[in-house]
């Protein structure tokens, strides 16, 4: 098991390394990040030269990559095109995004399991049909559609009806926010609710559909039939024989979807104006900022890889038949 995980880690790091080279070339070849500065006649030539030096724009590509790489392995992600250090920006934007992503992932998992199990146990009944249609609806609706609908037709009417702001629709916190952590908490909650609900709705649906199918397949299997035939109580059959087996495939699906959640978070941030990792990355790409793009890539890819590893470990834990070697 340990050897397997180590081998997977080494391969993942290699893949990550290739990904940085690829993205580096793509962004570096797509244009001049200082074009705006150069177009401005008020900016003296020496400022542009200094910026070029800071960003190593005049060095050959392989050398620029090496400069980035040798710093990045020490945790230094260089400077933005605007001349600020990347790392503090990365950390603050990451914390904003994680606030939404962690909460949404946890609630989505619980919701997906609950809905999936309930629909499967009520197979063919009204509750099942309602759940399945709802799941498909959220599966089909793009993230920005769900976000916009919640914002325009749920949050704003509620706020207007109650005549006070229950749900904030813009930003991750009030700009004037201060005080102790606990006094800030209600403001965080009012800002976080809508984006988190959006992310939950678009994430849970495919898992719930999968969980339902997985339960139905397990219910139909020989070992469950045997357990019933032996006279084990229905409750015990469900808990011990059905759930445990039906959870195995779902864990993998959830872990593999983590990249999609981060992608969903990107759109949610745009809809709700959060200064998170996604918007930071989007602005970085628009500004041809290699260092921001690579920092985003490294962080998200690392999260995805760690989640995939976690899935493998949980997989082995849930299913003793699985041996990694």
């Amino acid at each position, binding site marked *: 098991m340990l050897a397997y995980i180590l081998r997977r880690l080494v*391969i*993942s790091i*290699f*893949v*990550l390394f*290739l*990904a940085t080279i*690829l*993205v580096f070339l*793509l*962004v570096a*070849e*797509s*244009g001049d990040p200082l074009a705006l500065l150069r177009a401005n006649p008020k900016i003296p030539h020496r400022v542009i030269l200094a910026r070029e030096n800071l960003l190593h724009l005049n060095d050959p590509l392989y050398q620029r990559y090496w400069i980035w790489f040798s710093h990045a392995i020490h945790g230094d992600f260089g400077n933005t095109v605007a001349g600020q250090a990347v790392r503090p920006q990365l950390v603050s934007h990451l914390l904003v995004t994680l606030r939404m992503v962690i909460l949404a992932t946890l609630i989505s998992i619980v919701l997906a399991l609950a809905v999936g199990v309930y629909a499967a146990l009520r197979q063919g009944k009204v509750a099942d049909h309602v759940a399945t249609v709802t799941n*498909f*609806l959220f*599966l*089909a*609706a*793009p*993230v*920005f*559609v769900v976000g*916009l*609908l919640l914002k*325009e*037709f749920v949050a*704003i009417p509620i706020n207007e009806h109650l005549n006070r702001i229950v749900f904030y629709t813009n930003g991750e916190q009030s700009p004037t926010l201060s005080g102790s952590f606990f006094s800030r908490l209600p403001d965080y909650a009012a800002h976080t609710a809508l984006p988190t609900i959006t992310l939950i709705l678009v994430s849970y649906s495919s898992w719930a559909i999968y969980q339902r199918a997985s339960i139905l397949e397990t219910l139909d299997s020989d070992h469950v039939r045997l357990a019933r035939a032996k006279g084990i109580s229905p409750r015990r059959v469900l808990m011990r024989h059905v759930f445990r087996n039906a959870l195995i495939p779902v864990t993998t699906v959830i872990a593999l979807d983590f*990249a*999609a959640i*981060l*992608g969903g978070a*990107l*759109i949610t941030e*745009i809809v709700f104006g959060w200064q998170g990792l996604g918007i930071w*990355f*989007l602005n970085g*790409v*628009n500004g041809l900022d290699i260092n921001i*793009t690579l920092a*985003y*890539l490294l962080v*998200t*890819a690392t999260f*995805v*890889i760690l989640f995939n590893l976690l899935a493998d470990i949980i997989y082995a834990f849930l299913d003793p038949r699985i041996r990694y070697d």
Partner: protein
Amino acid sequence: MTETSDLSPRQQRLRRVSTSEVGMHTLPEAVPPAGSDDEAQYGMAGDARGQLATVARRFIHSPMAVIGLCTFFGLAVAAILTEMFWTYSYTSITNTLNAPPSLAHPMGTNSIGGDVFAQAMHGTLQDIEIALVVAVLATFIGATVGAIAGFYRGTTDTALMRFVDLILVIPVLAILIVLAHIVAKQASNWLWLAIIIGAVSWTYVARLVRADFLSLRERDFVEASRALGASNRRIIVRHMLPNALGPIIVNATITVALSIVLESTLSYIGLGIQPPNVSLGLLVDQGQDSATTEWWLFVFPVVILVVLILSIFFIGDGLREALDPKKNRVRA
């Protein structure tokens, strides 16, 4: 299915191989021994038609799938007819500004007098065009890569799959944003958009086909065709690929739906379809600020977009059920 009990054991074996595969297809020529006089009796064409009919019958028996299919073709036909016969085109500008839905403008007009119905229908057509190109592209690349990786295994497999991992560890949207930014400067053509979405959408098909090929290559019929002197290329294209066709078709359908999601998302953040061309995502973006006042600018594109994607998901789900070999499979 025809009765097989009166066939020789050898013939029965061959038939079992051909019918126990994932729906749709049976083995082409090489299965009947060369020169065998009862080639007609193997009825490969008839067999395939029989399975196609089974799949079609099972598909039609699923109400959601039929509703999905009708809705999708309904939207597509409506979009084409609108393009051809409707009074306004998506670029026309009228003198009625910000008008709510009426007989003259079934979905109202926007702030510069554009007819929302013509725009929404053109957007639908544009989305379907892009999605079909993406599905063809992604399926072709994915099936090729997956087939080669699964068939040759070893170093080829490792290299190709590491490349797939490369795309899978980064959020697809992030790769698309980088690619769209580069392509946007070359041309704001929808075909470019389709090509970059296709370039990131093939990984799932590749993994699927590879997994299928890893097990298919151990089957007797592959060995049989090799013994008959078939080349690798022929074995892959004529014998193994048809047997993996079921999952490939289902996945191609899902790819159509997902590429509409990706395209509309890119258009929504301003990196997809550019004005004066329209797509549903772009219309939603343009209508979002007036969602509660000029609701028709927002609600109609949103509803069409969701219905379009949903209908394709239903078609995909119906196909999956219909092609599932575990469901009342014809046993030899």
